[in-house]
């Protein structure tokens, strides 16, 4: 007991000082009056939260949540079958795919946004390919646009989605799938009645992880989007840096977290209801 207390002293101090205390401070600051010259002053006001009642702000929040849900859904629709296929591969192929995934993880969101900007620019590949496929009338830059923002964030979250799914999907015994198939179930039925129920918890966690990541990204919308495509992350950092209103940024951050948690709780609840 004494030993474990001694061992835990440093982790406890570090986590209390660097996680719990800053979180409490954030809540406190959201209630402080802003100070245009500094950061905030003492006192308690509800101005920051009153600002959140504005319809324009609320519309941005809903828009950001929609983008996050869309990104998480695309990530899951692509990532789930891909991870399933990877876990059924032989070992060398599996390692190759995992290394490719991890290599994309080494690109910072700044570099992802930048490389998508390069790829979608007028002179490079993609737009010329779309013209050749007759999907576009003439060569043109594909940024800034909301599509570019979504594509780049999907790229950003994909490795996280897949690495979250990987342990669960790889633990799924092949025998169960074969048994279902031998009993005459079509691949679609196997997928719906065996694969999904066995991996529901992992899929929901992957959805939550990717939605939270998508909500927090600042660089992709600012580099690849127009101002009307900016998400909460951009609005919050603008409030803190350009607007010098840290209390407002703190209140918006807390509101964003609350909205995200409600959304994720709803997803978990809905999924449990749907597939029981």
């Amino acid at each position, binding site marked *: *007991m004494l030993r474990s207390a001694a*061992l*835990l002293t*440093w*982790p*406890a101090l*570090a*986590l209390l000082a*660097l996680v*719990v*205390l*800053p*979180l409490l*401070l*954030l809540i406190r600051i959201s209630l402080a009056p802003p100070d245009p010259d500094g*950061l905030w002053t003492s006192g308690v006001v509800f101005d920051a939260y009153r600002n959140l009642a504005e319809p324009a702000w609320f519309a941005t929040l809903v828009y950001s949540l929609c983008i996050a849900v869309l990104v998480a859904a695309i990530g899951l629709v692509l990532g789930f079958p*891909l991870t399933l*296929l990877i876990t059924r591969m032989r070992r060398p192929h*599996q*390692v190759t795919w*995992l*290394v*490719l*995934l*991890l*290599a994309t*993880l*080494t*690109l*910072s*969101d*700044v*570099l*992802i946004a*930048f*490389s998508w900007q390069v*790829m979608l620019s007028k*002179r*490079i*590949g993609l737009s010329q390919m779309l013209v050749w496929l007759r999907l576009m009338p003439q060569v043109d830059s594909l940024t800034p646009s909301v599509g570019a923002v979504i594509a780049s964030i999907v*790229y950003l979250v*994909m490795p996280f989605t897949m690495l979250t799914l*990987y*342990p669960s999907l*790889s*633990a799924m015994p092949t025998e169960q799938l074969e048994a279902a198939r031998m009993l005459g179930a079509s*691949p679609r039925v196997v997928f719906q009645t065996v694969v999904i129920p066995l991996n529901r918890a992992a899929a929901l966690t992957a959805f939550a992880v990717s939605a*939270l*990541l998508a909500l*927090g990204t*600042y*660089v992709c919308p600012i*580099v690849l989007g127009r101002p009307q495509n900016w998400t*909460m*992350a951009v609005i919050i*950092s603008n409030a803190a840096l350009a607007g010098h209103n840290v209390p407002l940024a*703190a209140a918006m*951050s807390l509101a*964003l*977290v609350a909205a995200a948690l409600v959304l994720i709780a709803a997803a978990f609840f809905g999924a449990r209801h749907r597939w029981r």
Partner: protein
Amino acid sequence: MRAAARRLFLVLIAVFLAAPLVVVAGVSFNREPRMTFPPRNPSWRWYGVFFSDDGWTAALSHSLEIAALAALVSITIALPIAYTRWRYRSSVAGWLEAIARLPFLLPLIVLGILFLAFWSWLGHVGRIENTILSHAVVFVGLPLASLAIGFRSIDPAYVEAARTMGARGGDVFRTVLVPLLLPYAACGMIFVFILSLNEYIIAYLVAGYEVETLPIKVFNSLRMGFQPTMCVGAMVFVAVGVLGFGAIAAIGDLPKLLGGRLR
């Protein structure tokens, strides 16, 4: 037919995942400072420029220093928690683990504002320690997760055998646990290292004006227009990352370290 569809799906996804890497690599080899792909007159010119420019090398060394120290600090937090959970079934460690997971529930921008407020409140602004400590606690969940897999995979018979032969807690830790846990601890640390290396918004908000990391430098140059050195910076990152994960694959079983189970 189904096999063909499956292969097509895999190829398309592989192209999607590899495309940005390939494009950035290609653009970094352009001789002229233009954003063209495939590269014209490929050359190493901008690599030379990158490594002889004080601004870029300073940013690179800031990034490496922050990432290495953040990984070190995060393992000193994660290891005692994982160990006491495993050894003493400590409920305090369970609570600490829950706190350590908390940052994963917060979007990065929120963590950025949180640490901006925290370090300003302490009056400790623009220092490299801010970035290091913030990254260490934000990513501490990763070594915790990999160490949990590691402790779970330890066969209790080894520990039992060591104890019957008279080894005490410290001996068991040193001679049995350390060698068995090393790949898991290394894996967790390399994850922290790489995510810290790439993290932009927290680093920018807590010390971005004074301590310019590579992502901050790339983002700042992005606003001033295109420079091929940015692509070189990106390639340096990918090289560091691939070396890091290559090291993991070499010292340990990559699928198992990522929580997979091979048949």
